[in-house]
């Protein structure tokens, strides 16, 4: 066996000199020492570095003989096996030995010296992701610049340089750009038109929303009470609250009692969140200890701590002013009317028959129901006053005479007129057949408006007597009214029916249409008109409990029935005209001439 050793040297001018020599040996030694078969003059090579020997099957085995390894196909190793037909590359120091074999020829070892270039750092840099991805620093700077420009520089610049606005410019002129990105949430329904108009409320940079800004539109909002009284009622702030407000003051907040303390915005579209119960209960929960002269009971929670409801009613004959009475127990009122609800609502008896006879054409069922006499207001929140002509007279007819085919009716509500009408009755003679009215009761089927209704007005010739009978307890007036005597003449007590009973809260029937009337108003069992049919607190509490009562059908905060701001001249939902000299928004259009939209459009715009 033999090896062909081919040495490639380079001359100074780069020309290759190739020398071949054949070595007829089974094994070769490699090293720096001169006695090696392959002598490599590089200090990095050991004196005796490695040994190559042929093994069975034409393979070559290479073993390091010293302590250092060698490169086999670029990999450091101390021993290895090579198939010379496939070829391999060995590296010793700066020398490269390429092993190859063609056919049956001896394996060839080609020796060349390379400039052992230090590992190029470029090669290794390829392993890093930096080769593939844009540099972190560049990305970071780019993102930084984009965010600061878009979300800070643009809004601030356009806020500071927005154009002056005069009357008649469109709402988009002079609006701040990109400040929608600053909005922390949608505005409530009522403020929706201000959605793109941040500077309307945020009038000045770095200054919290001021009450005066709110009052530009909500000018007629009245104070809850006098400031000193409010402060007394509130009592000293707790340590935590005091600290909170001390910090808030440092940041320019206006202090407790300002609009934004209770009314938070940007809580999402829809109705503005009602103010939480706690804002009220902080003061009203224990207010009697601080405001000793208050007539208000303590209230902290509708379910557990709320005074009994009180209704404004007349309670005695001859009262000129109503009084507030508690609905606890069995309160009595005095309206001056006789009206037993039970009798009118009974499913049987005269009233029910009367209704049946009047029939569906006239809008009645088999007996009277509440709606036959009580008409809701247009907003269905409450009821119109009961009207004698509309609601009672269908049955309680005041017809007293018939002339030809025409009936004569007494005018309700005017005793003098009645006196005159009845006094004049007997001056005109009439045939007994035509004056059926005065002949006594007839079949009930004819009872209806314009029909027949018997009243005992007395005999025609005794008109004065009949007037007295009309006003007697069993007469046509006395049937419903309480007779009395005024200046020596028979008269009826004035009627004091009230339409609103609550003075400090409100009640909306529309929200309760799912309930039957009799669930709350025990009218069907009330035998006397002196019964106050308003439900007491306990009835409300079957559904309504305090705001935090999660088991209640309707958890109810104070704001459900009460308003913090006294109901004054301005009604809810309308925005009053702002004062011409509003400090925060000088240069607003003439609010007397322009609508609220123009006002809103101009709010927060820079003035000329």
């Amino acid at each position, binding site marked *: 066996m033999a090896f062909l050793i081919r040495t490639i040297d380079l001359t100074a001018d780069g020309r290759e000199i190739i020398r071949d020599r054949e070595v007829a040996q089974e094994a070769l030694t490699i090293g720096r020492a001169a006695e090696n078969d392959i002598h490599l003059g590089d200090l990095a090579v050991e004196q005796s570095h490695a040994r190559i020997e042929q093994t069975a099957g034409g393979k070559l085995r290479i073993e390091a003989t010293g302590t250092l390894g060698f*490169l086999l*196909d*670029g*990999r*450091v190793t101390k021993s290895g096996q090579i198939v010379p*037909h*496939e*070829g391999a*590359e060995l*590296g010793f120091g700066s020398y490269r030995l*390429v092993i*190859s074999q*063609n056919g049956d020829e001896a394996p060839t070892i080609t020796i060349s010296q390379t400039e052992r270039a230090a*590992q190029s750092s470029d*090669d*290794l840099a*390829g*392993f*890093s*992701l930096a080769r*593939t*991805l844009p540099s*972190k620093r560049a*990305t*970071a*700077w780019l*993102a*930084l*610049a984009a*965010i*600061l420009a878009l*979300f*800070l520089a643009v*809004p*601030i610049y356009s806020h500071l340089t927005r154009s002056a606005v005069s009357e008649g410019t469109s709402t988009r002129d002079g609006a701040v750009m990109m*400040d929608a*990105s*600053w*909005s*922390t*949430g*949608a505005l409530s329904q009522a403020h929706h038109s201000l959605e793109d108009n*941040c500077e309307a409320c*945020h009038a000045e*940079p*770095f200054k*919290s*929303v001021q009450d005066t800004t709110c009052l530009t539109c909500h000018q007629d909002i009245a104070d809850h009470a006098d400031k000193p009284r409010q402060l007394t009622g509130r009592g000293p702030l707790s340590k935590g609250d005091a600290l909170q407000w001390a*910090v*808030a003051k440092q*940041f320019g907040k206006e202090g407790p009692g300002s609009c934004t303390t209770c009314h*938070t915005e940007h*809580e*999402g579209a829809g109705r503005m*969140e*009602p*103010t*939480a119960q*706690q*804002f009220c209960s902080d003061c009203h929960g224990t207010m009697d200890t601080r405001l000793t002269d208050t007539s208000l009971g303590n209230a902290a929670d509708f379910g557990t701590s709320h005074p009994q409801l009180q209704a404004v009613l007349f309670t005695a004959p001859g009262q000129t002013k109503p009084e507030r009475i508690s609905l606890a127990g069995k309160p009595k009122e005095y309206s001056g009317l006789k009206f037993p609800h039970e009798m009118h609502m009974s499913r049987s008896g005269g009233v029910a028959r009367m209704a049946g006879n009047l029939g569906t054409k006239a809008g009645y069922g088999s007996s009277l129901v509440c709606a036959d006499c009580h008409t809701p207001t247009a907003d269905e929140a409450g009821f119109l006053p009961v009207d004698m002509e509309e609601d009672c007279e269908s049955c309680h007819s005041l017809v007293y005479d018939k002339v030809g085919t025409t009936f004569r009716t007494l005018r309700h509500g005017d005793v003098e007129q009645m006196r005159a009408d009845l006094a004049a009755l007997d001056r005109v003679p009439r045939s007994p057949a035509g004056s059926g009215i005065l002949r006594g009761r007839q079949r009930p089927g004819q009872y209806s408006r314009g029909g027949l209704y018997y009243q005992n007005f007395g005999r025609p010739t005794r008109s004065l007597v009949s007037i007295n009978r009309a006003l007697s307890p069993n007469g046509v007036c006395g049937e419903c009214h309480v007779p009395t005597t005024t200046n020596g003449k028979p008269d009826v007590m004035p009627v004091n029916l009230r339409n609103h009973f609550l003075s400090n809260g409100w009640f909306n029937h529309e929200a309760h249409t799912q309930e039957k009337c009799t669930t709350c108003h025990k009218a069907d069992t009330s035998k006397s008109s002196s019964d106050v049919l308003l439900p007491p607190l306990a009835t409300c509490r079957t559904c309504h409990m305090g705001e935090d009562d999660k088991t209640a059908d309707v958890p109810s905060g104070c704001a459900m029935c009460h308003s913090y701001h006294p109901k004054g001249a301005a009604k809810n939902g309308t925005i009053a005209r702002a004062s011409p000299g509003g400090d925060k928004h000088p240069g607003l259009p003439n609010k007397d001439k322009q609508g609220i939209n123009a006002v809103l459009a101009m709010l927060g715009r820079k003035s000329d």
Partner: protein
Amino acid sequence: MASLPNEQNQRERRQSSDHESFLSHKKMRWLKIALVLCLITVVSYFWVDVTPRHNGGSWYGYTLGTIGALLIVWLSMLGIRKRNFSAGRWSLKAWTSAHVYLGLALIVIGTLHTGFQLGWNVHTLAYALMMLVILSGIYGVAVYATLPASLSNNSREMTRGEMVEALAAIDRQLQAAAQPLGRDESDLVIEALAQSTFNWGIGARLSGHYRKCATNRALAYFADDWSRPAGSDEPKDKVRALLGRRKSQLDQIRRHLRIRALLEVWLYLHIPATIALLAALTAHVVSVFYYW
């Protein structure tokens, strides 16, 4: 003098026993601190009654926001801190441990600061960037804990330089072995040799799937011919064997690249997103007070 080596030994022993991961630094001191912080935050969130509901604009929201903002600024200073080595209480390891655990606590603090009121605005942008930074950080900790082992398994005691050198050695032999081949076949070899090892996209690096690999293509061409026995010294067979070796060397490099990419890729998100977060945080805070 005699005691000196002894002391040195002791110190070395102590230091080597100190060699614990930043995750378990000082018996997980920072994990405990972060957990306590989270607990306090969560309990107070439910305990403090903010009306009408929690949001960043209540006193409680501002408090959480201030804590969160300070944390973010401090956490981002790891980038500066890591460039200065020091030992002791504020060693880089302690700092990193705190960075990881306080960063995780920021998820709770930041989220409760929002009161779960999110929208398309600069405030939520800041929150989203914060979460992006934290989640990429979690990924980073996870891969740092698991992948280095497979990195060293894969390298089989080869350095990166050796891998490149090995590939170059195979390429030189391939160059020589392909000399007798015809035009079409040598074009295939040239293509394989000319194709860059590293100039591949992030997708190829992360997945390890190199669909346009010229070595694969050449190998497929040469491997089709099974008519000659293995070990024959036909030029084609030599080229095929060398291509096979090239392929396996490439595979090793590519596995290395893949693991490296998995180890590094989160930083390309974590760091730019942190800087972006600092910008968004600035915009968030300034805008809140600008429209105060």
